[in-house]
């Protein structure tokens, strides 16, 4: 099994799903692909279709309207797939806690494997999170 994991660790294809964020984390994710932080060095590529993806990057507080669609998106991804919550929104819904549109106790929309803190998290923090994910894969 570890050979397959090592292959997966070296070529993580990322799909970006934005569930009602303030789109700052989305821009920081795109920042990762640009010359300054270029994650293609680790073999990470942004893919257009969920079928091609290994890692599902979720940003935002997953409000009531987008939650069922996010759930369906998660079910469409071929296994093994990891879910990474980017920013403070997926973890604690930071300043939108009292908002109307998220019914309390919605932690069960999709199982999140890795949280990256920060509003928005610095690109270096996101790369560090990816390295930890790769470390977990390599066992």
């Amino acid at each position, binding site marked *: 099994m570890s050979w397959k994991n090592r292959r997966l660790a070296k070529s993580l294809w990322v*799909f*970006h*799903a*934005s*569930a*009602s*964020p*303030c*789109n*700052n*984390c*989305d*821009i*920081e994710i*795109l*920042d990762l692909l*640009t*010359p*300054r932080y270029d994650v293609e060095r680790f073999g990470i590529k*942004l893919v*257009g279709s*969920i079928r091609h993806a290994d890692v599902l990057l979720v940003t*935002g*507080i997953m*409000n*009531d*309207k*987008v*939650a*069922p*669609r996010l*759930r*369906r*998106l998660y079910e469409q991804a071929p296994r093994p797939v990891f879910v990474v919550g980017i920013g403070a929104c997926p973890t604690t819904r*930071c*300043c*939108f806690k*009292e*908002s*109307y*549109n*998220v*019914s*309390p*106790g919605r932690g*069960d929309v999709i199982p999140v494997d890795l949280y990256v803190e920060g*509003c*928005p998290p*610095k690109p270096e923090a996101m790369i560090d999170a990816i390295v930890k994910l790769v470390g977990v894969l390599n066992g």
Partner: protein
Amino acid sequence: MSKTVVPVGPFHPLLEEAEFFRLHVDGETVTDIDVDIGYMHRGHEFISERKTFTQSIFLVERICGICSTSHPIAFVHAVEDVDDVDIPIRAAYIRTLIGELERIHSHLLWLGLAGHFIGYDTLWMWAWRYREPILEIFETITGNRNHYGMMRVGGVARDVPPEAVPPLLETLELVERKMDMIAKAAADDPVLRTRLKGVGVLSRQAAVDYCAVGPTARASGVAIDVRKDEPKDAYGLVDFKVIVLENGDVYDKLVVRILEIVESVKIVRQCLERLKTAPGPILNDVKETSAGEGIGRYEAPRGEVFHYVRTDGSNRPLRHKVRAPSYVNIPTCAASCKGIPLADALITLASVDPCYCCTERAIHIVGEGGVRAQVDLAQLSRQKTERLRREIHG
């Protein structure tokens, strides 16, 4: 070919945010557009009514990530408008400095994404490469790449020490040189010109009808710019040009934004020079605001941001209405996206530089019902998918 419905969104590489456009397509030409927003709203006005003015600034900042200082400036203008509060000269310069730097980084961001949308990744990488120094300037002045938390009612939170100014000027020098290179790569490239010229034209009359604002309106010949119409902060003291072009296609929207970047660099340089010498405090502390109404507006990178605040004497707003520029710019796609090929429709949607999370800060109050059962949500969504599939294969 039967009339098919191309669902763009909610998760689609064209849009960083979740949006749902149903393009009714006949063959390759788009006949009708049905915009379904609502995936993004988090209820800002509902929450801000429970926060004091200073707390609410941090909330208002998170309405939109890429124009994250336009909303606080407009909100602060609204609160100051209730009592006609004046701010010190140094604070005015710092506010204009932050606002213009954000215009540069936001326009560069859109320029890169426009290149990405039409498959021209080299332009994307170049534009975003020279956006990084701007974010570095932000990090030195405010401590964070976005969400700066700089604005306060009556002034600014942090000062720009005079010795920090010279390195900022050098970085600005580098960005200005590279901007000419990018402007040449984008504006004079023949293939890009044929791809974008005459695409998704928004006529002047349509821009006036839909009350469009910002670069979308200025590219169609409507000369409106809050910085010139109602100069607040330091916009009265710095000199700059308002760029207005005529034929309103995607190519003109590109050129308007590039020229605006050049203007912003000039404004930032003037602000930095004067910050070296302008003395005085950076905050007039406002103890309390009287009852009344206040309108605050600011020229965000995408157009005029409008905040309306009604106060009843306490330090919490009674009513706080926010209207972002994309709220009026996105419907213009109904006028400019009809009858053109699918590929053009998508770049025209993106040419308005839509920011959906701004558009949807509306408010609701949670219904009395308890926690919604997980089952019926998924079930409702499945019904909709069946309806959509029948519609597509209808």
